[in-house]
């Protein structure tokens, strides 16, 4: 993940200042009630404030103490709301620029689908099924499908990618997005999504977190946190009665302090910030998820369904080797292949030239081809010998064509050709039974390893075989090994025959492959895996991918894909990069890990707080309990205040971690658990002992109690 986009700094005033304001706005109990732990904290803070006011007006109790406790309880609530506000603030800027693009959209609605007569209406009054005309320089008013015309479109407003893309009717490039600009030509677009629900709208809502609903795991975690809050509420309330038995009367202030330090305020305060930050991370990777549920599911994915082309291999097959027949040197074959490919502009043809001049060290021929198709090879001499060619006039150039499936060049009486094996055999006129054994063996060998053999001939003479193969992207094997360590299986999906597929699968190190796959095969495969309880992620772009995308637990559609695919998927990748799936999984895992780590930390913190507060509460009744004051806190009041202050400050201290996320390493669950349990579990038990002690030293140095 070297290209990781940089997150805006936490201390950026553009984010910080609105967040501080937002923190206060979020104190509204009607809003806060969604977060039970912090809501309870707010109620308790309000109650203690009342006691503070009572203390100050009646002169009873110690207003200095209750005032400080009340203040720090309010800070606890504010720090929690601040965390959420900061997390939201980071997406705000992006949302604002998006909103600008759509604010003044107008549409030119066609009066009739055939004609070009239009009426101009605001984009917001478009209905699904309306057809609009968009010409060069205009913004597309809404999401839809091109029904007529071809245009180049600048989608940088959404993707951040400045190179224009082609949109045309029919096929897999027909989807257009509202807010993008037509640069040339014109298109007619059938509106497919009602205004307010378009891609840009969803993106804005998502980034701002306005529509953020709790994800299933978040709900479950909230239940745990609410349950713990209830348990501690019971423990604290009953403590009043238990203390009464020994004649101790506990004040509401100290009980409130005990309650707030025990309930899981740390994770309660940071939970929604973690969720927003996870979505935000995804957005920075140029992926838009339609629901938080999908991000969570990404962390759970067991199987990745990856398209071979573009993900595992480069899009095209490339020449990998020259295999001459006996009597022909490699150099000779390479030169012949090089010359025969001069007029082959396909990626395969170019890869042959690249192999010959690169790995095989042949010289690049200097060619000047006049418009007639005839020209002159000026220099073509390397290493001398039979293959050397001087400056020669070219008699004919045969460009590659799909019908003939060969290309070549004629000069000085030589007729060099390269192409599909049967095409070349036909060209040479060699009959099947006369094909040399060595040649046949080479062809078989290439086919067996999943490659595509091409033959090279000089007139009637066979020179040898070119091994064309799918080249696996460098580094992808390591990537898959890392996924395997995480417990994720990778399945390659390809239209190739099983032999070819198996060869590439083993080279790329995928766990399984689906050869000669049709969209129905994909769908069936996903269903089968899901029945076994596995969660599947896949990406796709075509309309025929839509059912599988909808069926998959995590379906990622390419931004360049069709409207149908984008609707079916629960994420859209704006970069249209199929390898993005791997990053998405990592982001999902990171989100869950952060949540778990902070939950563990928060709960583990309670141990120290008991040791701070319990002796402080009862030291007057039972002086012997001073033995429990293992931190050696100076006085009962400073002990209680220190625990409350530590409890509030730890929320602020952990905001960066909540937003950045716990670092994910692909090392397998057992190793991850060991590490995180050590850091956040054991650390969570030990850190507060030191932290509360330090705060206590500060509290006493400043004479706060």
């Amino acid at each position: 993940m070297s290209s990781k986009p940089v997150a805006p700094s936490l201390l950026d005033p553009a984010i910080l200042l609105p967040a501080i304001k937002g923190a206060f706005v979020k104190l509204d109990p009607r809003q806060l009630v969604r977060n039970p732990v912090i809501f309870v904290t707010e109620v308790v803070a309000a109650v203690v404030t009342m006691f503070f006011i009572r203390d100050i007006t009646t002169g009873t109790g110690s207003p200095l103490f209750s005032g400080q406790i009340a203040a720090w309880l309010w800070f606890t609530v504010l720090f929690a709301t601040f965390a959420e506000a900061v997390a939201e603030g980071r997406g705000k800027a992006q949302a604002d620029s998006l909103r600008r693009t759509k604010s003044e959209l107008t549409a030119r609605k066609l009066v009739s689908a055939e004609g070009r007569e239009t009426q101009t209406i605001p984009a917001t009054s478009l209905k699904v099924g309306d057809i609009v005309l968009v010409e060069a320089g205009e913004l597309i008013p809404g999401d839809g499908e091109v029904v007529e015309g071809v245009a180049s479109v600048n989608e940088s407003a959404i993707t951040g990618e400045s190179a224009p893309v082609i949109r045309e009717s029919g096929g897999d490039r027909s989807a257009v997005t509202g807010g993008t600009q037509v640069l040339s030509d014109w298109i007619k677009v059938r509106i497919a999504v009602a205004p307010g629900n378009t891609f840009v709208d969803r993106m804005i809502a998502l980034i701002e977190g306005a529509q953020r609903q709790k994800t299933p795991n978040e709900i479950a975690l909230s239940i745990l946190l609410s349950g713990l809050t209830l348990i501690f509420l019971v423990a604290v309330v009953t403590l009043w009665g238990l203390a009464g038995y020994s004649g101790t009367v506990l004040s509401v202030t100290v009980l409130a302090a005990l309650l707030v330090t025990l309930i899981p305020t740390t994770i309660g305060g940071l939970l929604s910030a973690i969720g927003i930050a996870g979505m935000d991370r995804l957005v920075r990777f140029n992926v838009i998820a339609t629901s938080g549920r999908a991000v969570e599911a990404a962390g759970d994915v067991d199987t990745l369904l990856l398209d071979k082309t573009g993900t595992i291999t480069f899009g095209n097959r490339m020449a990998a080797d020259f295999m001459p027949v006996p009597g022909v040197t490699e150099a000779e074959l390479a030169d012949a292949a090089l010359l025969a490919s001069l007029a082959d502009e396909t990626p395969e043809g170019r890869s042959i030239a690249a192999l010959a001049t690169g790995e095989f060290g042949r010289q690049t021929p200097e060619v000047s081809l006049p418009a007639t198709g005839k020209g002159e090879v000026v220099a073509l001499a390397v290493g001398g010998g039979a293959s050397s060619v001087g400056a020669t006039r070219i008699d004919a150039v045969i460009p590659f064509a799909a019908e003939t499936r060969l290309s070549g060049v004629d000069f000085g009486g030589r007729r060099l050709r390269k192409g599909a094996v049967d095409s070349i055999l036909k060209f040479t006129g060699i009959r099947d039974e006369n094909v040399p054994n060595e040649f046949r063996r080479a062809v078989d060998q290439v086919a067996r390893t999943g490659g595509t053999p091409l033959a090279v001939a000089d007139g009637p003479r066979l020179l040898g075989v070119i091994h064309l193969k799918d080249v696996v992207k460098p580094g992808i094997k390591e990537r898959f090994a890392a996924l395997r360590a995480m417990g994720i299986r990778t399945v390659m999906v390809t239209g190739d025959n099983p032999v070819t597929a198996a060869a590439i699968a083993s080279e790329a190190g995928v766990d399984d492959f689906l050869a000669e796959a049709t969209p129905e095969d994909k769908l069936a495969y996903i269903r089968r895996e899901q029945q076994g309880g596995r969660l599947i992620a896949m990406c796709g772009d075509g309309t025929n991918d839509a059912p599988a995308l909808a069926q998959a637990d995590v379906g990622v559609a390419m931004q360049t894909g069709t409207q149908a695919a984008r609707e079916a998927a629960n994420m859209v990748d704006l970069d249209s990069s199929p390898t993005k799936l791997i990053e998405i999984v990592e982001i999902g895992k990171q989100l869950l890990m952060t949540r778990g780590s902070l939950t563990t930390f928060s709960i583990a913190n309670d141990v120290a707080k008991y040791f701070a507060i319990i002796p402080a509460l009862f030291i007057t009744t039972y002086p012997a309990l001073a033995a429990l004051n293992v931190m050696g806190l100076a006085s009962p009041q400073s002990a209680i205040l220190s625990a409350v202050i530590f409890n509030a400050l730890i929320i602020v201290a952990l905001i960066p971690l909540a937003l950045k996320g716990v670092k994910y390493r692909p090392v397998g669950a057992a190793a991850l658990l060991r590490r995180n349990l050590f850091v956040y579990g054991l650390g969570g038990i030990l850190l507060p002992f030191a932290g509360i002690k330090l705060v206590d030293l500060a509290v006493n140095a400043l004479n706060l109690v």
Partner: protein
Amino acid sequence: MSIIGWLQISLLFIAVLIVIKPLGLYMARVFSGERNIFSPVLAPVENGLYLAAGVDPKKEQGWLAYTMSMLAFSLAGFASLYAILRLQAYLPMNPQGFAGMPSDLAFNTAVSFVTNTNWQNYGGETTLSHFSQMAGLTVHNFVSAATGIAIALAVTRAFARSNASTLGNFWVDLTRATLYVLLPIAVVMALAMVWTGLPQTFNADLTATTLEGAKQTISLGPVASQEAIKQLGTNGGGFFNVNAAHPFENPTAFSNYLNIFAMLSISAALVYTFGQMVGNRRQGWAFIAVTAILLIAGVAVIYWAEAQGNSILTAFGLDAAQGNMEGKEVRFGQAMTALYAAVTTGLSDGGVNGMHGSLTGLGGLVPMFLMQLGEVLPGGVGSGLYGMVVFAILAVFVAGLMVGRTPELLGKKIESREMKYAMFAVLILPVTILGFTAVSAMLPFAVASVGTAGPHGLSEILYAFTSAAGNNGSAFGGLTGNTPWYNTTLGLAMLLGRFAYAIPVMAIAGSIAVKTRVPASKGTFPTDTPLFVGLLVGIILILGGLQFFPALALGPIVEHFSMLAGQTF
């Protein structure tokens, strides 16, 4: 502490360890409905019972039907037991001619035995007829234990099955647990106990004239038969008032061993059965390891605290080497009393062979704390297992996210539904224990029942409600529990501790069963490793025990530190 003491303790754990696997495998066979060595004899009996009761053993129940059956059975059991206790004067086998129990005590006792608590606010030998002891209490010693096993089996099947809507048949599980597991072992155990010297007779009490010429009543009765199932079913309700400290209930060091062995073995083996039935024996061992760690730690603390003795008394010149022998039987000594105290409270047995109220501050803290942890070490037969599963669910939920996946236990996703019920279940103990204790501590007439001044008095109340809510049944002594207030509130605490816990657990089982079992991968949170054992120990201590820390601080902990400071109350 002495090496001999530790050897005695280790020997018992080794003996239990040896039987865990064979007994666990046997129970797995029994509850899977497979043939076993008792089938030739007992299968006709079993089928006859189904025929008589009109139960189709092939027909399985969903979680709700299973739960309703369990509740209906318990309710019927309560009603019949209550009737027996109230009417014992008119029932046969009452050679001592005891009168019927008063209503509040009968309520308390009936609830106590139906919930497998066996809290005794009565003195058995001076209150109950042989009929009440045998047809009333002993019957429930069997079936309340079998009920616990049945619930545990439903939970086990929930994890073992995938996409299942049923969890087994309560009546079948109840019958098999009684017939194939408890009954045969109880017969052997009762005979062994008779051999060690326990009485087994229908005769009335003996009256003896002592050397000084005083008359002494020597209580007798069918002791051995009740004693065997008292331990096997982790009931703990003794025939005699002083329970297993009585020389007729627990006459020798060997019978003491037999007692502890009997209470531990079925509970521990049932955990192994869980592992076997869910197809992951390592999971069973992981739970057993958690149990062993906490239980041995408990034994060690009690043993150490008792061997240290009471510093205030040694200051008066008492031999420090003797440690604290108050409330202990000389024939057992500190090691065996410590072991018994930890095991009886780690389980929900509740039998005692010494007075827990006479333990030192720390020594008394441990039994109370072990009960507050939810009695999962290894807990009552069945109830301990499902309590452990609830903790495992909490553990994977809290820490499971740390591996970057949503939490799962044994391939079943833990989601909000399970969390809701799990939290409801774990809420029951603190609410019941702390709630009733706090209210009692504030009511003057409830405080009047306390036997000792100072923090020990609070410990007495706390212990009583802890024992009741945990369905343990052991007492701290000192507290006069046979009052309308305590009979009623302790009865309610027992009901809540049993059923308000078991119902959400059954709901969890129902929800877990329908889920698809996700195959494990390298990315799955491992729940059968030493790391998980450590985590689960931590979760049990922090989530299960921490909320009781303030209450304990005001009771046994302050007692301990006061003792060190030489302060008395």
